């Protein structure tokens, strides 16, 4: 569809120039949108919220299972906790990242509850991210956690 009349409108040279700048503007817009989208995807890929939620629930479930198991138990958690801090508080397991330092700074708070046994003692502790593995022990009526 040719809107231009050489006699009345733009000449050929101006037409070419016009189309050229039009394409440049559209390419600029495409690059801008592409960069924004890739930045968004990258940000989503780096999120650790799911991992923190998963760890808190998995560890709480394991503590419940250890309470339910008969006799003495020593269990080494197979998951990788290298980048996280596991904080055992009364009835709750908090998981946050090293840079968050204290759970008050962590948002959203990732924690899950475990059921303490009334006739057993749980030794609350903070397991740092330096070590790669978490060990949970039940000896007699004492349940404790440590780095390995």
């Amino acid at each position, binding site marked *: 569809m040719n*809107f231009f009349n050489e006699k*009345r*409108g733009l000449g050929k040279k101006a037409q070419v120039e016009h189309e050229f700048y*039009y394409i440049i503007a559209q390419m600029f817009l495409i690059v801008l949108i592409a960069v924004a*989208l890739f930045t968004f995807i990258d940000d989503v890929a780096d999120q650790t*919220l799911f991992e923190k*939620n998963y760890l808190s629930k998995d560890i709480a*479930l394991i503590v419940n299972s250890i309470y339910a198991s008969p006799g003495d138990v020593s269990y080494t958690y197979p998951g990788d906790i290298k980048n996280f801090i596991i904080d055992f508080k009364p009835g709750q397991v908090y998981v946050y990242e090293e840079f968050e330092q204290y759970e008050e700074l962590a948002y959203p708070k990732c924690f899950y509850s475990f*059921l303490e046994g*009334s006739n057993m003692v749980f030794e609350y502790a903070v397991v740092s991210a330096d070590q790669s593995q978490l060990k949970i022990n039940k000896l007699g009526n004492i349940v404790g956690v440590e780095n390995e």
Partner: protein
Amino acid sequence: MNKKGLITFNIINFIPKIIFLAVVVLTIVFMVRGFVRTDVDISASESYVLVNRIIYSSIAYHDESINRTYPGIVDLIKFNSERIGSTIAAADNLGAKLDLVGRRMTAYYNKDFYEQYYPQRGIKGGSKEIKTKFYVLVRDGETSVPDTLEVSVISR
């Protein structure tokens, strides 16, 4: 068309393209957010662990003469809500009801929670119910009688 008209035409022509582009970008963003999971549901596993904990420790028969606990044998003296509540700390997301069918006896773990969220079972955003059945022996004094233990766990 003169130059001014051409520029105006191009700008007006660009507006639907910008709107379409915005719609496509927003669709991509919302689709990605919609499919990214940030949570995992462990209510079923948690319920089964609780049931095992109650049956194999709280209400299990313990022979003090040989210091041995018999999982699967229910001690009638221990089969009550107070005993179960005294051995396991109260949870904020779990409740259980235990029925000895033959004896027509019922005991609860976290009774208030169970009764509050039982009507919401199966509703989206409500609670979930896990039902299990165990064939047990009920120890009453010196005798052991077979019975069925039905357990219903409500989790939220």
